[in-house]
């Protein structure tokens, strides 16, 4: 076991983590602990763009962007946070450009902008060109640019260090405990400030746009240390994943003019969203697709998908604006998007919920109090700027705006405060976890349990939910958690034990899936990404509030989930019926 001491420790090296690191490294001695090499994070898979009301190509302003964000989130958005995000979006984009990001350009040499789902002119009048982009590689360019600037500022990375515990002493942040994948050694990092930026949880679903590595590690660690998880029932299903594989095909494809069609060739979105059509928000499009499929208008012999049609767009436009996704269709499906429509289906994409924070990135321990020295940003966090449904491009915005804020706030906290003493035997929980799995002699397999979890989640907790399906999910997960106690791994070694890693990741997914299902079961309404067929309307009287889920540990060590609720921050927008 090794002990290290840093002023600020950042957990995760995706967009939010690196954006935070660029700030905190210039202000405090910072270490970035990351499960993956920095440029491997899933920020790189984001394609379409990052919205900001630059008004480079047509009239726009950040207030319209704020409205769209609040409406897109079905009024569960904390409006003060959305205002900050949309206002700071402009500088966030300009900062990235100054850091070197190669945005696509207008004829005047300015950053080009294109349409994106749910982003509108003047409070829903018509689609607006707001998304700043670099072909369909915007996330890749952001990730590379942030890494380049981390190199420039000499950010200190601990690559392939997997954070498995958060140390809190007498209510204050003391550090984290990490497992070094290369050696199997445990490292304690004492820190004045800790920023969680460890990404999402999308691997609890089977058809998912998420990387294998997105297993909710940060959320699970915080949750087990008694911190709440906010709004976990709100999970976004992106309308256009490659059929069966789930690989993301950007909404930018529809921003460029792509059309969703059913088996009759009908542009069915006209029936669901007469104004925004194919550029309605993602929850609306995903439900529309499933409705088409359920009513027998799906494509293919099993009628289980629809088409994303780009065939009417000029090949030059596809080559210039959508080179990667057209290549995905060629590589993985063997079809030519110039001439054939692409079979798609909704794919699990983004967790709107996560570790609750305020607008400075400080983590909340309950509805009002923060944990001193603890921060979170990006998909792991819930500020909440996405509410019940995130608008396209707002995740890249979120990581830049709140990654920056959390990095600055953490470093300033570290400067103003002393180290909190480490608790006794700080490595104990991680040591027991790792030893327990390495020595386990059970009969269950990690891969089998994960597969059953993903299948149950796809069947019971996806785009359409009912009380019955969610109860089924809760039961399935409970049974899988019992079986998980009886898993064994084959690799007993210390060197790059990814078998062990996958077992730990599964434990995280099981806990978080349970929180999702229990939170969803209690929310007897439909709002944004959470659609209950048995409660098909939004209920602002009972449920215009955030879910806060806590793990309760009984004396015998058994755990249960306690749900509480937190008011939504409303400033200028009163809830209205949501139409696109």
């Amino acid at each position, binding site marked *: 076991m090794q002990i290290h001491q840093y002023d600020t420790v950042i957990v995760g090296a995706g967009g939010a983590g690196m954006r935070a690191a660029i700030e905190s490294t210039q202000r405090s001695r910072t270490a970035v602990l990351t499960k*993956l*090499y920095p*440029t*491997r994070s*899933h920020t790189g*898979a984001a394609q379409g763009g990052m919205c900001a009301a630059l008004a480079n190509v047509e009239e726009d302003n950040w207030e319209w962007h704020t409205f769209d964000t609040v409406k897109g989130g079905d009024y569960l958005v904390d409006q003060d946070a959305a205002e900050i995000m949309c206002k700071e979006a402009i500088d966030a*984009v*300009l900062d990235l*450009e*100054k*850091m*070197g990001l*190669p*945005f*696509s*350009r207008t004829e005047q*040499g*300015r950053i080009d902008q294109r349409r994106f789902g749910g982003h509108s002119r003047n409070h829903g009048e018509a689609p607006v060109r707001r998304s700043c982009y*670099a072909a369909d*590689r915007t996330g*890749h360019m952001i990730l590379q640019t942030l890494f*380049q*600037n981390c*190199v*420039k500022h000499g950010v200190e990375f601990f*690559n392939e260090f997997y954070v498995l515990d958060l140390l809190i002493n007498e209510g204050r942040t003391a550090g984290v405990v990490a497992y070094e994948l290369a050696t199997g050694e445990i490292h304690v990092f004492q820190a004045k400030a800790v920023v969680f930026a460890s990404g999402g949880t999308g691997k609890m679903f089977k058809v998912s746009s998420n*990387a*294998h590595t997105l297993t909710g590690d940060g959320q699970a660690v915080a949750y087990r240390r008694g911190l709440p998880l906010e709004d976990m029932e709100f999970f976004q299903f992106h309308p256009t994943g490659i059929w069966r594989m789930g690989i993301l095909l950007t909404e930018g494809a529809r921003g460029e003019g792509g059309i969703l069609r059913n088996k*009759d*060739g*009908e*542009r069915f979105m*006209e029936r669901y969203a007469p104004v925004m059509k194919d550029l309605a928000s993602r929850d609306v499009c995903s439900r529309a697709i499933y409705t088409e499929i359920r009513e027998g208008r799906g494509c*293919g*012999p*099993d009628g289980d998908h629809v088409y994303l*049609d780009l*065939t009417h767009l000029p090949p030059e436009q596809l080559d210039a604006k959508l080179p*990667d996704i057209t290549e*995905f269709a060629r*590589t*993985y499906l*063997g*079809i*030519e998007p110039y*001439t*054939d429509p692409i*079979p798609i289906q909704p794919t699990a994409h983004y967790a709107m919920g996560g570790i609750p924070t305020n607008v400075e990135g400080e983590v909340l321990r309950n509805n009002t109090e923060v944990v001193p020295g603890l921060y979170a940003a990006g998909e792991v966090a819930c500020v909440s700027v996405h509410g019940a449904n995130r608008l396209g491009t707002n995740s890249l915005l979120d990581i830049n705006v709140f990654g920056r804020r959390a990095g600055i706030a953490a470093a300033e906290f570290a400067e103003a405060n002393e180290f909190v003493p480490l608790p006794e035997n700080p490595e104990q929980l991680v040591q027991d976890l790792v030893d327990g799995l390495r020595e386990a002699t059970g009969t269950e397999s*990690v*891969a089998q349990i994960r597969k059953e979890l993903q299948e149950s989640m796809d069947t019971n907790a996806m785009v359409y939910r009912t009380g019955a399906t969610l109860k089924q999910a809760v039961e399935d997960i409970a049974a899988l958690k019992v079986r998980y106690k009886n898993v064994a*791994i*084959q*690799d007993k*070694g*210390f*060197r*790059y*034990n*990814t*078998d062990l890693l996958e077992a730990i990741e599964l434990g995280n997914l099981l806990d978080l899936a349970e929180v999702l299902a229990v939170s969803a079961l209690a929310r007897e309404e439909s709002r944004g990404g959470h659609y209950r067929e048995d409660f098909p309307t939004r209920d602002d009287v009972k449920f215009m509030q955030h879910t806060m889920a806590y793990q309760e540990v009984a004396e015998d060590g058994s755990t249960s989930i306690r749900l509480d609720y937190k008011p939504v921050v409303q400033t200028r927008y009163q809830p209205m019926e949501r139409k696109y």
Partner: protein
Amino acid sequence: MSTPTVEKHSAALDAVEAGGTKLITVTFRIRRFNPEEHPEPVWVDYQLEMDPKERVLDALNTIKWEQDGTLTYRRSCAHGICGSDAMRINGRNRLACKTLIKDVNPEKPITIEAIKGLTVLKDLVVDMDPFFQAYKDVMPFLITKGNDPTRERLQSAEDRERFDDTTKCILCAACTSSCPVFWNDGQYFGPAAIVNAHRFIFDSRDEGAEQRLEILNDREGVWRCRTTFNCSEACPRGIEVTKAIQEVKRALVTRRF
């Protein structure tokens, strides 16, 4: 309402949608190495029933999840964006997640081994630190002088296009570890680092080209390139790596970029 149009289906789309592909038996011959257990690498065969349209990464996952949990490799996004899973498949560097089984002759055993020129740590996992060090050495960030403008720097679409190809790099090391010069000379920067220098040298906003060119003018710099084109063939992003290296060489001679 727009007039509904019925799509013309090509045979390719029909084939995709028909599904129900016949599974075939494929042998994967993997070069295993775990110094905790055995000092020398060994080739191990695994047989699987696979849909030939699946990825080589799917095969590795199936082996790990169903047959041998000790098989070790890096992977993350599984669709060619994160750059984790570069490996030698049938002797050629590729990303396992971007290589379909049907494209690597599944009639015969498919060989899989770690990329060359970097120390193998376990199975398909190599030490990436020397690779990233070479990247860092070329100052891979925008260098500008004077004050930042209030708004964005202007750049014409043509100037942006000039370095588009090299912005696609995902740092997977497939190019560098396919380069015979890199195999034999651990000091050579390697193609990926030069690609990332190119990305800035030819960016009209950058003012650090002279510094970077001096670094690459070193005896371990661009002049070690022997133009074997292995790197261009290996690049999973389709970057014309050798061309980029040639352009850097030319810039060194002409000091024009």
